[in-house]
Structures are given as structure tokens and as C-alpha cells.
């Protein structure tokens, strides 16, 4: 039979690899800085751009989209060409994908420290960047589907299905979650409010983990693990079941991030049930990976690539066991808002994504440069440093999480909270934070060693930019046995893609439609009013400074929480919250009922020098809020934008809003002056922030006992 000659494009893979390594190290460095800031707040440097709240999203975005994202593209571009026996559909699209993605990362690296953020986790980037992400993602999709269409291999290997699912689902998630109302070029409000916004966000957040951090890497596992071990996957049948059940179940599990919140109970239960079911496909996949090495474990001892992959797959197994456990309501009651969750995601991030990426890089560089790995010893050193790093990172955080949670819930014999001061529970776990930073540091050292090793490896070989290959064209390929609908499906990429889309959309729709219906049916709590213009500015400062990174605004219905914070949070209280700010971590106390709890002057001094007001506090100071002035020119735009998405500001209110703003600000400035002799301009940003904090959770305090009973 006539074989066609062609070549595989290694050059774009090489560029993605370089980007992976660079952004991996940058992302980890930012992570290490954050870890240190938690016990040495001085490392916030008293600068707006380097405070914890602003660089925490920088870390998560850098790791997820820059490090893991580029690794995914590298892995996909390499394996897809070979599995389909063709060059990518279009070199031009490959390069648009590459440079477009790097520009998006650059934009993120600039805007996030500047405080331009939507505050929705892993979707912090503002609307122009969201649009750019959509465009580049579509370019990736066209390039991928195009490649599949011009393939020389009749059937699509299971890895390709995972890539398709990744493309389709991330597109849907990103578009739905990014519905926002632009105010200025770099400021927007989420289209959804309160409970709805929370549900959409965690449907997104959870599935971003599923379809950005998991499915593409499962695809990579199904290609690189058999490839590195030079033997086929343990059970291809299992991989088919793995794929369909995973994408079917994953999409439902999002609400487990919102247990005990104001989200309707049925949605919480749905999230729990599907989360528990998720353990089956996840472990099916893990076992499939590990059993591929049955009878070949001697290779694992000698081959760094396999070592990394074995730990990666094991970490995948651990975190996918832990995930369902954490979504049980009784476990969640303890673990949620604590460092347990941080440990959990880092088993996934450092173990699964990190080690899978490292294994892949140790495999790809020698192949693409036609040489051997420069030093197996260094790779082994990296392996042990990394493994040790993960353990020293995660274990202290598990202890910290459980310790702190138990302290939050501890009552003394008299029936009062044993640790009334939240700070006591923070000081208790600071040594564990230090250990965690050491773990992260070891992991980072390992990454540096890898970088050196890979550069040396490339140096001793010659880069093969276009790798020659030959294969029979599709129409002449030998006929394979057809057995039923699924194998037919694997020959029809477009139908396959559509089915995948349906599988993931069903979950999303059934979960969200009732919740969206609720919005029009929620009996609005009469006393809940839109924010005043000054409070609105304060809220936007709260968003800008990333306060939500460390403070929740969701008092759960536990006695330990109502004792500590006050009345538990009601769904109806958040109807004007675009976006919702419930948070996911309590490094500091919950703030939903902080309004009117302290005098204005307390907030004034506390934001200036937290450590002086609360001895031992690890909160960074915010001196710039005392100098910068509220941007009153933005008020009208904000009011109009919010009215468009349903906040009932009266028509024409934007014209007079600044008058209300001025009088409320003057009132606060006067109270500061009268009570404590503090002199501060009424335009200062801190005034707006105080206004917002004093408003928080007070709507239903006003008529205590009247409006709350019905909820």
C-alpha cells in the first residue's frame, strides 16, 4: 500500500514546553511568597501590588492556566499528531494558539496585581481578557477538530476523547460563568447575583478542576504512560467506561462547594450524591493507569518518567478519594473554610498535575532532541525532593485545618465558645504554615533542578523541528472490525463532540434551571436594600483588594457559627450582590455580620495597622486606602450597569448618586473626628470601605425577629 510521507510539528510543542517551565517556576515562586506572607506579614511589602489578596489569584491563575495550561497544550499537540498520524490542521492556528495564550497570561500578570478582578475564583480576569480567552480557545478547538478530520487513523484513541471533552466543556463553562456587565474597560459586575452567582461560579470552579486540570491530563496519562512503559493500557474497555462516566458525573458535583450555605438544599444534596458517585470512574482511571505497569515495576525503579507518573496517578487517586469524602456534609462541616481544602487541592496540583507534567517533560525533551536524558541522577533527586515537598506541604495543612476547625467549634462547660477570639485559632497553626512553606520550597528546588537537567539534555542533542513520519491515508487504511455503535462513534468526531456536549450540558441544565427559577420566586426580604453609592464603592475596593481570599461572608447554620458571628446567612440577603462574595476560605473571620459590630474608628485603625489593633494578626496593612480618593466619576456608570442587571436603583438616580455618597462619607468622617479625633479626608477610599463593612449583614438586623422567621 502507498504510504504518505509527512512530518510532525515539534516546534510548537517545544515553545509550549518552554512556557510551561517558565510559568511553572513563576507560579510556584508566587505561591511560596504567599505561604511566607501567612506567617511573616512583612512580606506583603506594604504595597498594594504584592498583598496576599491580590497575588493569591495571580498564583492560582499562573499555576492553572499558565503552567498546567501550557503543559496541556504541549502534551496535546505532541500526542494528537501521533495518535491521528497527521500534522496539526494548521501551523498558523498552532502559533496563534501559542502566542495568544501567552498574551493572555501576560495580561493576567499585569491586571491581577493592579487589582482588576471579578473576584470569582479561577475566573478573576476581567471581561476583555475573558473575550480573548474565548477566541484563543476557539482557535485551539478549530485546530483540534481540523486535525481530527484530516487524520490518517480511522478511530480516535481514548486520549483524543478526553481532549475533545476538555475543549467542549471548558468553552461552555467559561462562557456561562463569564456573563458580566462591563462598567469600564477593566471593571465589570457579574450578571448573576447572590445564590445564583454562587451556583454558577462553583459549577464553573468545580468543573474547571474537572475539565482543565483533570480530563486533559487523563488524556495525557492514557497516551504517555503506555508510551513510556512501552506497553498498551491495562484495559481499554475500562478506559471507555472511565471516560463516559467521568464526564457524565463530574458536571453535577459543583454544589458540594456550597454545603450548608444559602444554596437550596436539594441542590446541595444533588452535589453530594454525584460527588460520591464520582469516586468510581476516578478510581477506575487510576487503577487503569497503575495496572498498565503490572509486571513492569522493575522499569519504574529505573525510569524517572515512570516514577513521576506513578506518583502522579497515585496522587490523582488520593485526591479523588478525598474529594467525595469532603463533600459528605458531616465532613464538610469540619473541613470547609479551613486549610484542609488547601492541602487537598495541592495533592492534586503538586502531585497529579505537577508530577504528570514533569514526567511528560522528561519523556518529551530527549525524544524531541534525539538524545538521552542528561542526568538520571538529577531527575531522581528532583523526584525525591518533589515527593518529600508534597508530603511536607500537605501533612501540616491537614493538621492545621482540623485543629483550627475544632477550635472554632469548641464550647466550654458554661456553654460559651472556648476560643472567642478568632485570632487564637490562627496563632495556633502558624508553625504549621511555616512547615508548609518548607514543603513548597523543596518542591520548587526540584523544579529548578529539572530545568537545569532539561536544558543540559537539549544541549547535548539536536532539536528535530519536523519529525518525519509515514502512514497510509485514511481511505486506503485496512478495514477494521466494526462492532456496534460506539466504534462507529469513534469514527465520527463531530457527532462525538456533540454527544459529549450533550452529556455535560444535561448536568448543568438540571442543576441550574430550578435555581434560576428561584430567583424570580425568592420572596425578597423587605428590609434588604441595594447598596448606597458609597457602600458600592467600598464593596468594589473590597473586591479589588481580594479580601474574599481570606474572609468568607457566609455564616453557616451551626451553633458555633451563630454564637461567633451572629444570625446565619439567608439566601434573600444576597439578591443585590453582583458578584457574590461568600468566599471559600477563612484565614480570617467571617465578615457577613461584621456590620455595626465595631465602631468606625476600629476599622480605621485596623486597616491601617492590623497587628496593632489585634496583636499577632497576620492581616496585611492597607496604608494606600488612606491616601487614594474614591473615584466618584465612576459612580454613575456603576449605578447604571447594576440597574441594567436588575438592581432596583431609581431611574435617573445615577445623576444624584454622588450627592448621597458625599453626605454619607461626610457622616463617617465626622464620626471618626468626633469619637476619636481622627482627621481624614471624606473622599479617602477607607471611608467607602468602612461604609461597606458597617453595612454588611445589617439589613435583617434592623427588624430582628420579623423578617428572619420565614427563612
Amino acid at each position, binding site marked *: 500500500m502507498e504510504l504518505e510521507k509527512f512530518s510532525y510539528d515539534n516546534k510548537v510543542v517545544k515553545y509550549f514546553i518552554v512556557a510551561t517551565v517558565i510559568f511553572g517556576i513563576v507560579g510556584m515562586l508566587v505561591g511560596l511568597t504567599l505561604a511566607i506572607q501567612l506567617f511573616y506579614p512583612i512580606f506583603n511589602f506594604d504595597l498594594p501590588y504584592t498583598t496576599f489578596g491580590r497575588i493569591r489569584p495571580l498564583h492560582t491563575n499562573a499555576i492553572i492556566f499558565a503552567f498546567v495550561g501550557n503543559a496541556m497544550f504541549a502534551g496535546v499537540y505532541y500526542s494528537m499528531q*501521533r*495518535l491521528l*498520524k497527521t500534522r496539526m490542521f494548521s501551523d498558523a492556528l498552532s502559533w496563534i494558539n501559542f502566542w495568544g495564550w501567552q498574551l493572555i497570561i501576560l495580561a493576567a500578570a499585569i491586571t491581577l496585581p493592579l487589582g482588576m478582578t471579578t473576584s470569582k475564583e479561577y475566573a478573576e480576569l476581567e471581561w476583555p481578557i475573558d473575550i480573548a480567552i474565548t477566541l484563543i480557545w476557539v482557535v485551539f478547538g478549530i485546530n483540534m477538530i481540523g486535525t481530527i478530520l484530516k487524520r490518517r*487513523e480511522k*478511530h480516535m*484513541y*481514548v*486520549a483524543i476523547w478526553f481532549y475533545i471533552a476538555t475543549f467542549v466543556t471548558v468553552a461552555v463553562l467559561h462562557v456561562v460563568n463569564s456573563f458580566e456587565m462591563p462598567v469600564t474597560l477593566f471593571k465589570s459586575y457579574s450578571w448573576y447575583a447572590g445564590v445564583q452567582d454562587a451556583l454558577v461560579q462553583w459549577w464553573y470552579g468545580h468543573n474547571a478542576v474537572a475539565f482543565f486540570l483533570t480530563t486533559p491530563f487523563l488524556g495525557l496519562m492514557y*497516551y504517555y504512560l*503506555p*508510551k513510556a*512503559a512501552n506497553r*498498551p*493500557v491495562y484495559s*481499554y*474497555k475500562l478506559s*471507555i*467506561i472511565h471516560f*463516559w*462516566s467521568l464526564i*457524565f*458525573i463530574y458536571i*453535577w458535583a459543583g454544589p458540594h462547594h456550597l454545603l450548608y450555605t444559602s444554596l*437550596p*438544599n*436539594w441542590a446541595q444534596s*444533588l452535589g453530594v450524591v454525584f460527588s460520591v458517585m464520582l469516586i468510581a470512574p476516578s478510581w477506575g482511571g487510576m487503577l487503569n493507569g497503575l495496572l498498565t505497569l503490572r509486571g513492569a515495576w522493575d522499569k519504574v525503579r*529505573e*525510569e524517572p*518518567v515512570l516514577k513521576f507518573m506513578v506518583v502522579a496517578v497515585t496522587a490523582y487517586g488520593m485526591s479523588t478519594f478525598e474529594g467525595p469524602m469532603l463533600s459528605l456534609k458531616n465532613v464538610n462541616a469540619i473541613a470547609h473554610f479551613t486549610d484542609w481544602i488547601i492541602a487537598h487541592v495541592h495533592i492534586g496540583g503538586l502531585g497529579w498535575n505537577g508530577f504528570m507534567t514533569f514526567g511528560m517533560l522528561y*519523556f518529551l525533551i*530527549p*525524544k524531541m532532541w*534525539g*538524545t*538521552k536524558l542528561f542526568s538520571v541522577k538529577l531527575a531522581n533527586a528532583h523526584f525525591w525532593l518533589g515527593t518529600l515537598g508534597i508530603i511536607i506541604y500537605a501533612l501540616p495543612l491537614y493538621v492545621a485545618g482540623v485543629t483550627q476547625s475544632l477550635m472554632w467549634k469548641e464550647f466550654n462547660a458554661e456553654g460559651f465558645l472556648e476560643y472567642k477570639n478568632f485570632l487564637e485559632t490562627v496563632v495556633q497553626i502558624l508553625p504549621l504554615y511555616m512547615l508548609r512553606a518548607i514543603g513548597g520550597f523543596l518542591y520548587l528546588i526540584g523544579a529548578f533542578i529539572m530545568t537545569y537537567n532539561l536544558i543540559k539534555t537539549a544541549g547535548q542533542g539536536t532539536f528535530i523541528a519536523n*519529525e*518525519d*513520519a*509515514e*502512514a497510509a491515508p485514511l481511505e486506503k487504511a485496512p478495514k*477494521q*472490525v466494526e*462492532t*456496534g*455503535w*460506539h*466504534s462507529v462513534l469513534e469514527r465520527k468526531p463531530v457527532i462525538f463532540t456533540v454527544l459529549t456536549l450533550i452529556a455535560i450540558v*444535561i448536568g448543568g441544565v*438540571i442543576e441550574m*434551571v*430550578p435555581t434560576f*427559577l*428561584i430567583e424570580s*420566586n*425568592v420572596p425578597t426580604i423587605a428590609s434588604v436594600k441595594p447598596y448606597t453609592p458609597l457602600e458600592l464603592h467600598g464593596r468594589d475596593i473590597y473586591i479589588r483588594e481580594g479580601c474574599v481570599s481570606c474572609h468568607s461572608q457566609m455564616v453557616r*447554620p451551626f451553633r458555633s457559627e451563630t454564637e461567633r458571628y451572629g444570625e446565619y446567612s439567608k*439566601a434573600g440577603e444576597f439578591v443585590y450582590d453582583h458578584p457574590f462574595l461568600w468566599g471559600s476560605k477563612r484565614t480570617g473571620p467571617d465578615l457577613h455580620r461584621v456590620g455595626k459590630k465595631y465602631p468606625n474608628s476600629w476599622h480605621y485603625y485596623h486597616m491601617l495597622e492590623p497587628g496593632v489593633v489585634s496583636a499577632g494578626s497576620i492581616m496585611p496593612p492597607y496604608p494606600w486606602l488612606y491616601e487614594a480618593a474614591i473615584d466618584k466619576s465612576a459612580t454613575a456608570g456603576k449605578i447604571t450597569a447594576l440597574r441594567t442587571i436588575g438592581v432596583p436603583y431609581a431611574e435617573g438616580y445615577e445623576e444624584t448618586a454622588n450627592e448621597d455618597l458625599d453626605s454619607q462619607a461626610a457622616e463617617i468622617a465626622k464620626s471618626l473626628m468626633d469619637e476619636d479625633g481622627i482627621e481624614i479626608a471624606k473622599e479617602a477610599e477607607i471611608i467607602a470601605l468602612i461604609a461597606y463593612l458597617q453595612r454588611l449583614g445589617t439589613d435583617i438586623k434592623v427588624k430582628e425577629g420579623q423578617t428572619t422567621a*420565614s*427563612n
Partner: protein
Amino acid sequence: MFKHYFEQIHNVEVWPIISLSIFFIFFVSLLIWVVRTDKNYIKAMSNLPMEDGAKPIEESKTIRS
């Protein structure tokens, strides 16, 4: 607590049942297909990563794998 919310949604109790049946039917038919499918086809599929059509020149130079 949220009873009065979903009392107002028409037939809310049917949603979880629809979701479960869709999942169940698909999954069962998938299992049946996987169990009954041809062994040669499965074998050919699982060997795909090993046959990438690249010229063997590179193979000899690669790391032991």
C-alpha cells in the same frame, strides 16, 4: 427551611428523577456495549499509542523506555 422556595417551582421533584434516569440508561447501555464488544478491535485501539508512524531513526536514539 427552603421548602417554600421550591414549593413554588412547578414539579420540582421530577428533576432529580429525570437526571437519574438519563444517567442510568446511558450508563447501562454503555456497559452492555463494552462487555459485548470485539476483542480484536479493543486490542487494535489500545495499541494505537505505540504506532505513531514516526521514522525509526529517532527510536534508536531515544531513552530506554
